[in-house]
């Protein structure tokens, strides 16, 4: 039995979406994060994206690790199950959940410590397997919940609030995702909802490993001068390569745009993304050049954002494993248990 969720009664003011849900139906419990924390803006963007995509709120599984960022799944989509796993291990738990039921939308929410420090190995392997998910790293360059130590994404030379300087090379999750074969790779900024929401929508529509690195300043421990993850720094150095204008089910007519200003990408699920190019030469379907470009711009001190790479015909782990269409968690005893007769025959083979 499947349901179409029944929207609750709402203040007339709230505008319902196609399924009749209002924004409020996508909210969760009240955030316990610091006032002004970038992570809360990302939660808001997720709520917005889910609302605009007319997703049934409960058909989402919210997975996370440990950290301030990993607490956020409690603060959106209150009607969806959530799993706050152990530190750095969300990717494996998400993979398992996804294997058990391929029909849900999997949102993996993590932090830079959770993903790039302790969780780097799991992040990498989850991505290279093409698990169908949206992996969101709420990247503030520090361990917020443990009070502001550098994480592995902190830039070399970046200053800590305590005054220390980071001397290790930073781990750029976006470059990593590209090297590992992620089929949807983007970077955004918690302070730029106009860019973030469409990216999240496109990522959710993407049927494969979608990785979004969202710079999300920690107002408590990493929003000072000398930090490369502060609101000011990111605003000043943000270089968007493109902007997703809309996502539709039919190929949009692009004739009326100046050549080289628009790019249309069709995703596996059939939807089309219309991208306005902000950097004429940037092509988000060329993995090799994307990697080189990111490296160059990073050296130039820029924070490159936008849809950095998308593979039009992505495959996910279930395709590779050739699993049945029905969710494995719904298969009944009759499908699963070969029964006594087969066993009797099998015994002979062992005699």
């Amino acid at each position, binding site marked *: 039995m499947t349901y179409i969720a029944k929207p609750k009664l709402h203040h007339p003011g709230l505008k319902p979406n196609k399924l009749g849900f209002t924004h409020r139906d996508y909210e969760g419990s009240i955030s316990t994060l610091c006032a002004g924390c970038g992570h809360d803006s990302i939660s808001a963007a997720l709520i917005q994206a889910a609302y605009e995509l007319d997703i049934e709120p409960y058909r989402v599984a919210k997975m996370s690790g440990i950290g301030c960022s990993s607490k956020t799944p409690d603060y959106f989509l209150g009607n969806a199950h959530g799993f706050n796993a152990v530190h750095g291990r969300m990717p494996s738990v998400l993979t398992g959940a996804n294997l058990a039921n391929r029909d849900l939308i999997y949102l993996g929410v993590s932090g830079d410590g959770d993903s790039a420090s302790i969780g780097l*190995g799991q992040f990498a392997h989850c991505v290279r397997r093409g698990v169908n998910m949206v992996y969101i790293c709420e990247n503030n360059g520090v361990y917020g919940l443990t009070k502001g130590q550098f994480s592995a994404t902190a830039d070399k030379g970046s200053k800590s609030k305590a005054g220390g300087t980071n001397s290790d090379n930073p781990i750029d999750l976006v470059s990593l995702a590209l090297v590992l074969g992620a089929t949807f790779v983007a970077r955004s900024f918690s302070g730029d909802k106009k860019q973030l929401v469409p990216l999240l929508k496109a990522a959710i529509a993407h049927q494969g490993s979608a990785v979004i690195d969202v710079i999300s300043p920690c107002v408590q421990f990493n929003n000072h001068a000398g930090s490369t993850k502060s609101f000011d720094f990111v605003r000043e150095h943000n270089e968007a390569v493109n902007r997703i204008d809309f996502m539709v089910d039919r190929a949009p007519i692009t004739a009326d745009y100046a050549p080289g200003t628009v790019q249309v990408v069709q995703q596996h699920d059939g939807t089309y993304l219309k991208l306005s190019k902000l950097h004429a030469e940037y092509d988000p379907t060329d993995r090799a050049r994307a990697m080189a470009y990111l490296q160059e711009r990073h050296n130039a001190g820029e924070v490159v954002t936008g849809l950095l790479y998308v593979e039009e015909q992505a495959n996910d782990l279930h395709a590779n494993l050739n699993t049945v269409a029905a969710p494995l968690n719904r298969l009944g005893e009759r499908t699963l248990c070969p029964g006594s007769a087969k066993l009797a025959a099998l015994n002979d083979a062992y005699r």
Partner: protein
Amino acid sequence: MQPIAATNDFVVKFANVNGSGSASANELFARSILRMGVPVCSRNIFPSNIQGLPTWYEVRVSGEGWLGRRGGVDLMVAMNPQTWDKDLAEIESGGYLLYDSTKPLTSQKLRADVNLLGVPLTQLSNTLEGTIPRERQLLKNIIYLGAVVQLLSMHLETVQDLITKQFKGKDKLIKLNFAAMKLGYDYAAKTLAGKCRLKVEKADLVGDRIFIQGNDAAGLGAVYGGATVCAWYPITPSTSLAEAFTAHCKTFRVDPVTKKNNFAIVQAEDEIAAIGIVIGANWNGARAFTATSGPGISLMQEFFGLAYFAEVPAVVFDIQRGGPSTGMPTRTQQSDILLAAYASHGDTKHVLLLPRDPHEAFEFAAEAFDLAERLQTPVFVMLDLDIGMNDWLCEPLSWDDSRKYDRGKVMSAEELEAGTFFGRYTDVDGDAIPYRTLPATHPSKGAYFTRGSSRNAMAKYSEEGADYVYNMQRLLRKFETAKGLVPAPLRRDAKEKTRYGAIFYGSTSPALDEALSHLEAQGVHLNTLRLRAFPFGEEVVDFVNAHDQVFVIEQNRDAQMQKLMVNECAIDPARFISILHYDGTPITARFIAAAIGERMNVSKPKAKEAAE
């Protein structure tokens, strides 16, 4: 010195070099004897290496049906110069040594009380036409097999039948093997006639039993138990369990129409990811398991604590090997008991199942999934290398088609829709087992947040001491409930009344059975209790109280199971006497009988094997 004369009761050991292809020839030998209706048990002793190091295959022929290692060797087939001295030393006085006599024995050590059986294997193999060196190398194994078959007066046809079956279709190969067999057989008949007094005599003592490895049986049990997700990372001796599951899934779980898989198997990047996948899948309502060994159990600790505290089902097969650390990867031990029972930091207790052989490995494998979902907690199936990677003669596998999977307390959409109360960590039924919901069951009811941090009965985050204590005490009560659900220990009383008892578990079982009869023959009587699971029921306490002294026989150094019994049943340690065997080889009847006999002052030479 009298040559040993024995019929259907002796030990043959093949000493080979790994990578030389001896395995199939040796197994052929064991299976042939079974075909002749005589019970055998075989053990493969191999190195942690791929090519060039020593490997042994030990076959015990026992008309009486003893399936444990006996200890000692009656006929040694010494194909490995590196280990000649060691192999020679292991032979019983009056025993036999078969060797390649192509070159005369010169420097090699010899023993006056060991009878030499020389067969010019290399020379004979060179007479095989149309073969390349590598083939001849392999066929040498078949040649010595032929000789052994003759020396033990076995049926050549039986062996040939098996060869034909094995190489079905490959006629050239069959002919070649037959030829090689015959070379060895004829040579022995001609030149060694009457030299060997060991004999296999056709009998009807095998019945409908099967010859199977524990990992194979357990993998099959997981298929029957309804596992759909398997995540694993290769590690000896557990690898073959995941591979067996894969093979059986390909046979039984591929949709005949769509050719799609009703299963998902992921070779994870490591053990931490493997258990993470298993927990995620179980959380989402699929029966999922992993198979690993000691190092994996160490790495999975943090996740075990999460599953225990957040109450997520999980099935873990621990094929125990010699620890600590990398230890002895290709040797057997029962030394992960305490780490599994108390896995992870903080106060935890976990369910362990203790199969005695491949037959029980199959049953407990299937059972484990019911228990994990019923109790919403990890369940460890504690196998070891001896059961897992050796072929054991055991009862055929069986399945009751009327049996239904117990999916535990999972709330349906209908129940939620009907407004049935749902509080994730509330003890509604008084058995301390809460109800759970699966993701996306109902649009607006039953969703909750799973976490490893403290929470109240409604699964809301809480740092209140009282909420924490409520859950911790409920978890203790849940463990009490588990006592009534896990396989109970089995008691067997001696013929005569006795004040002495023995407790044992797992792969120690066959050796113990035999040791008991030896002891009985010497007038030593013991009642026994075979543990089949942790937590322990009242039976354990009752058994101990019913005896003055209880021997606890284990294959580890620190008497881990004994400690667990003392801890969990508040038993006075003074009641126990530990019999510990932990050199990595399977425990033997001789060792047990000697160790117990000694302590009961029965004069009997102490066994060679290492122990405390």
